[in-house]
């Protein structure tokens, strides 16, 4: 049941991301729900299971984009690895810490994307577009992050109550 629920969450997140989220774009930038979900999984999944989810989310995102396959797999894996490894040392509770950590994750995401493309496609990378959009992208994600965290938290508590499992952390 746990896996079915995670599957449904992914379906909803990616369906929203690829359909109506465009209507909420600011200066051509839309929030990245997949990235926020990866950060959430890194923090709230037990052990290194969040990393597996980061890899999966990145791979799905690559399949649903026109970019190079593997770029998002790499960036989302690294972000989930970072949060999964440091979750016991970080205090990601409350609006402001979530806002800040998601901004950091967004910047990391954009930088990894840029570095990979610069390495593989020298001279064909729209650096100016990426760097002009990156601050808006990061702040927008930071603002949407706490809202999505709130709903994911409600879901996590419900899942733990109804279907106790070894994958989710209690707090």
């Amino acid at each position, binding site marked *: 049941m746990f896996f079915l629920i995670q599957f449904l969450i992914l379906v909803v997140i990616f369906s929203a991301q690829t359909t109506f989220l465009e209507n909420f774009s600011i200066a051509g930038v839309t929030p990245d729900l997949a990235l926020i979900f990866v950060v959430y999984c890194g923090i709230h999944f037990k052990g*290194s299971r969040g990393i597996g989810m980061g890899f999966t989310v990145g791979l799905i995102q690559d399949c649903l984009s026109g970019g190079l396959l593997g770029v998002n*797999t790499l960036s989302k894996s690294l972000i989930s690895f970072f949060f999964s490894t440091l979750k016991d040392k970080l205090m990601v509770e409350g609006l402001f810490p979530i806002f800040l950590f998601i901004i950091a994750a967004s910047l990391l995401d954009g930088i990894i994307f840029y570095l990979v493309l610069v390495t593989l496609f020298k001279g064909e990378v729209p650096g100016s577009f990426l760097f002009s959009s990156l601050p808006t992208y990061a702040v927008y994600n930071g603002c949407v992050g706490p809202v999505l965290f709130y709903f994911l938290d409600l879901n996590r508590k419900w899942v733990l109550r109804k279907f106790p499992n070894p994958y989710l952390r209690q707090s």
Partner: protein
Amino acid sequence: MPRKGIKGKRLITLLSLLILLSLVLMTLNIKRDQSPFFFESLIITILSPVQAVFSQTVSSISGVFEHYFFIANSARENSELRKQVDQLSREKNELVERLNQQERIAGLIPNEEPEATQLTVATVIGRDATQWSKVVFVDKGTNQGVHENLAVMTNAGVIGHVIQSTGTTSKVLLITDSRSAVDSLFQSSRVTGVVVGTGRDVVKMKYVPMNAEVAVGDPILSSGLGGIFPKGLRIGVVSQITKKKQGLFQDITINPSADFSRLEEVLVLMP
């Protein structure tokens, strides 16, 4: 302490594995042809019905708000008129192009008929899942004869070309994507250039010489070179021209004719 060491080694192994897997994916992606991997087809097949439902729902809701609550009948009328204007604009453009072509080739190749192009209507069911590329998904795939390198347009103008197809869906790379390039020409002066995406809502026309006579408002058409876009399809109009003192080419910004924020139904040009 030893336990901590083992955990650290395990994490480093995991990290290396993730990086390695990602690099393998990228390498395979660069080396393969345009056909999708099995997991790409699987994910798109699973998600496309849900995307279609989401798109239809959103379209219906926004339609209700737009047409009934805010500006009642005028919105619907306006929408119809816009479609008509787009249609007429496309027809006029086609006729002007055909006339120009006839004038140029009259007498040289008598009785030559232009190649008939078959159009397939497809519905946009989703957009790119990332910020960094401009792609839309349409509900027609190889089962309907849609395959890679077919031009896609609306009545208003070119929007892009198919880059990947599964049985029931296709990915369309928009002309606004930074990897897109369309060989083009100015309708009036016939000067050629290449329209490239910027990642934003506008596109740029590159390689237009400094001495070429170009004005704001000039229409841009596809030149037919490149093998994907037939000649004479409307791309957009010039919105800004910058001539730098040093440089060989003009910096030309173009407003695409198609409205990329409101893509619903598109036309795939079948050969």
